[in-house]
């Protein structure tokens, strides 16, 4: 066959593919879905900024042919906040991992959600720290095996969608890398929505997490997603459990709330109006 050109080639940074991710890893699917959504919406790629933190998925910002920034560990949301406030025309997306966003970066997540800064956060949840070789993290299931839980995990994991909802996110969804169509639709919703939006994507990490937990291949992990998936749109995220038998998926929250950016510019214009007619010096 002649030179094959993938339809999404234009959305990928030249010379960066193949990416660094393992075979069976779902990060590439998340990247695929993300550009898929942008393509569906025919968005102005110039106005899209992709920010990522540290970890396997952190490399994603390098693969999208957008303005991208690869920040320090856990700080992607804080950086993105600066970008978005400095130029509200930009669509600022943070795509990072569960450890990056919810362990070292947890504080930034809840505060950005609380402020309702208009940034879009996609979390690739692979249940462990992949890049460093598979240590347990804030989403590692109880009793799961990782290099730092050689006797099984004794920490309770976060329910990310519940955390996001409780922190004030206006759009909250959870899918897996197998539910790509729904994921793309949710990303599209998120990209068009104003306010702090969050999508958790459960993604297979067979090399690092799976093989230690009786799922040595991506296919095995994807089939687990298939078997366990229980789609409950608009249900209570507090009840959105993740167990070996059941993974509750869906769009849980979709509400309207004035964004920080909006209130900020309102405040600024109010102040400036007051300034007309001149206030005293400093």
């Amino acid at each position: 066959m002649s030179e094959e050109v993938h339809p999404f080639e234009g959305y990928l940074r030249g010379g960066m593919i193949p990416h660094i991710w393992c075979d069976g890893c779902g990060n590439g699917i998340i990247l695929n879905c993300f550009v898929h959504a942008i393509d569906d919406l025919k968005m102005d790629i110039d106005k899209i900024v992709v920010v990522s933190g540290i970890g396997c998925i952190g490399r994603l910002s390098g693969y999208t042919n957008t303005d991208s920034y690869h920040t320090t560990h856990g700080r992607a949301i804080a950086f993105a906040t600066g970008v978005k406030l400095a130029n509200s025309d930009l669509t600022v997306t943070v795509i990072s991992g569960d450890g990056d966003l919810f362990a070292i970066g947890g504080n930034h997540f809840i505060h950005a959600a609380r402020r309702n800064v208009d940034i879009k956060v996609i979390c690739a949840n692979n249940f462990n720290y992949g890049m460093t070789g598979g240590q347990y993290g804030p989403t590692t299931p109880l009793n799961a095996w990782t290099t730092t839980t050689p006797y099984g995990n004794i920490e309770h994991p976060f329910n990310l969608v519940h955390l996001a909802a409780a922190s004030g996110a206006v759009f909250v969804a959870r899918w897996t890398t197998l539910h790509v169509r729904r994921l793309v639709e949710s990303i599209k919703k998120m990209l068009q929505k104003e306010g702090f939006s969050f999508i958790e994507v459960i993604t297979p990490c067979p090399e690092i997490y799976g093989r230690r937990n009786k799922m040595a291949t991506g296919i095995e992990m994807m089939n687990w997603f298939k078997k366990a998936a229980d789609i409950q749109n608009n249900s209570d995220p507090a009840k959105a459990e993740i167990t070996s038998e059941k993974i509750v998926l869906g769009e849980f929250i979709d509400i309207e709330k004035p964004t920080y950016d909006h209130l900020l510019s309102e405040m600024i214009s109010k102040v400036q109006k007051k300034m007309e007619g001149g206030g005293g010096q400093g």
Partner: protein
Amino acid sequence: MAQKDRTVLTGKHFMEGDVASAEGAIAAGCRFFAGYPITPATEVAERMAQRLPEVGGIYIQMEDEISSMAAVIGASYAGVKSMTATSGPGFSLMQENIGLAVMTETPCVIVNVMRGGPSTGQPTKPAQQDVMQAKWGSHGDYEIIALAPNSVQEMFDLTIEAFNLSEIYRIPVIVLGDEIVGHMYERVTIPSKEAIKIVSRKEPQVPPEKYAPFKPDKDLVPPMATFGQGYHFYATGLTHDETGRPQTDSAEEQKKLIQRLCDKIRKNVDRIIKVEKVMLEDANVAVISYGITSRAALSAVRKARQEGIKAGLLRIVTVWPFPDKYVAGIAKQTRALVVPEMNYGQLVREVERAAKETPVKFLPKLGEEPHKPVEILDALRRVHK
């Protein structure tokens, strides 16, 4: 009625150092401030919170100093001159992202109103204990620029200077104030807008497809594109080549990048460094000082002259990069040097290094008040014999 321009409050003011610094920032074109309350720098944030909206700028109080520094970098990449202000503990938290700013060559300003440390130390007491941290605080090899104001007026002037330098060299610039200059009230003269020199970062002169975000010009500084302009560029804290692509294995690229990041400062020291020379022409003893200490040093030198001692003062304004050349020069012509610092010996090491054989008398000061002129005078008398 047309809106009064509130960007530069031209005129004479009696104001606090922190406030002056804020005014300097706004005059310099800073339109983004992200910070976290901390004594004795809080007043900078308070002033910014009040003033930025007036000039269409953005003030945001973040959840900590880590995120403050991150947001400042983000805003800068979005094309807005940005800063934060803090003190010791917060400055420590910022170090990692200061390193990121260095690595991604991000113009931004950090005002560090120094207080007594280590740890929580003495929040309301002055100190000069972060001088070395300013240079070496973040991990890895890098150069940085730090300025030390010694008056409220300089809190204004040097903050502007800091922004200009950061824009020219794409590097974070630190204003090393201290609790005294920060909280002291003095008269400040704010010149007319026109009289204030403002510099902005170089923009790319090539179309997006030709743009390499980290490809330097002759001055070793790469032009900086802004998010949203269609350049689709990528910046990473990883070692990267001129196109911004990660180069995590290539020794070649590591060498190339780190050398340039340092050389763009080292090769421009003459353009960057500022010092103040007082009665040095015939001096055979000299005080080398910076920040608030230099005010006591100056009166000590004057008194010494009255006593017939040929004393002079080299006041360091640009703490980093360190003005080796000037110190070495003074060292050659003098018998001894006196270095008063509000710490237990930091910048004095740099002085000793530069002074070679010339003896250096160090005057430490911890807690309580800053040096009294007489303490420095005594030192001059002693080294003069």
